């Protein structure tokens, strides 16, 4: 079955979405991620969606709920590399992803997370 790999980098989990997301894949990712956060007691999750050029409301909600579930499990979430078209679509859909941190690319996202960790 198709899966999106979740890579562990120290205290962080790195998820790079490089295929077209469909609903089943999104659900699987959500489950896997919850599992991994608890098993590795990760402090942060970094989701790279720079290769994602199409979203629907379901994927938008998935991003929100991943962020929600991570924060309940005491992990920060940063979404990085959103394409302009994706950002516009989400705004038009009314999904403003309140409470989700964002960064321009993986590097900036890492910097942001390190800073957050240092502040804690």
């Amino acid at each position: 079955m198709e899966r999106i790999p979740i890579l562990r980098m120290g205290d962080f989990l790195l998820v790079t979405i490089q295929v077209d997301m469909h609903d089943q894949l999104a659900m699987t990712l959500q489950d896997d991620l919850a599992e991994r956060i608890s098993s590795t007691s990760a402090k942060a999750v970094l989701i790279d969606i720079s290769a994602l050029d199409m979203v629907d409301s379901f994927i938008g909600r998935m991003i929100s709920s991943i962020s929600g579930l991570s924060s309940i499990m005491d992990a920060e979430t940063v979404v990085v590399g959103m394409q302009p078209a994706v950002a516009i679509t989400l705004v038009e859909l009314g999904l403003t992803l309140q409470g989700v941190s964002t960064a321009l690319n993986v590097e900036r996202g890492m910097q942001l997370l390190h800073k957050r960790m240092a502040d804690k």
Partner: protein
Amino acid sequence: MAALQQRTFNVIAKKEHELLDSWTGELEASGMYRNVRIEELRQQTGDFIRLLVAGAAQADSTDLRASNWEDMRQFLEQLSHSRVLLGFDSQQTAGFIFSFKRPLMPVLQAEYADEPAMLAEQLWALSELIDQLGLHTVRTFQKSREAVIKRQQEELLELSTPVVKLWDGVLALPMIGTLDSQRTQVVMESLLQRIVDTGSEIAIIDITGVPTVDTLVAQHLLKTVTAIRLMGADAIISGVRPQIAQTIVHLGLDLQGIVTKATLADALALALRRSGLTVSKAV
């Protein structure tokens, strides 16, 4: 419905020069076509008469949509297009065709002098045909005009949304003119694309040139700011004039979560501070 007789067109063809002279003379005398050179006018009137005769000779139909009027339609489209470029109004353009009726009358009268019933019938039918031609000209004239306006609008849209790089990692977008949905879309797209291209973390939207801010404009601004945030950059809105601030408060608009500054300078200062840069005077 009276059908146009071939005989009518034959007489037009026969009296072509006579018609041409009086028609061109009339157009000239009206003084409406001063920007058109006389040779050109003569050429156009000549073409018109020839195409009229040729079109009628091909088939009986007086329906302008029929294939025998194809050349005539093209000629009229070109004519009205050139009139648009010369800055004529619709009346002058249509008047060109309609004024053909006047020289036509005496010619037909002479031809059908003995048959008043026939004369009336032919005059009526011909007049209807010319009306159709005139209307077609006006229609294409309007279309050409609309095309010109549309192109200008598009150009304006592109010209009025430049994205400026103020500093390394700081982009500015000076907005001029009213914000509507279409412009917001263009602005949003070009700004977001530049953010990706340059990897800038701060975008300043300057609304000094936006005359009024109402609920719709505020909503568009909010959308743009949210999209910028989703991309992982920060947005600052600058150039909020006192009247606009008053309007925003009076309308009860919620701009919470948006950083606003009075001037572009303030916004740049904030952007530099956030990037960890300081500006100091050289000693």
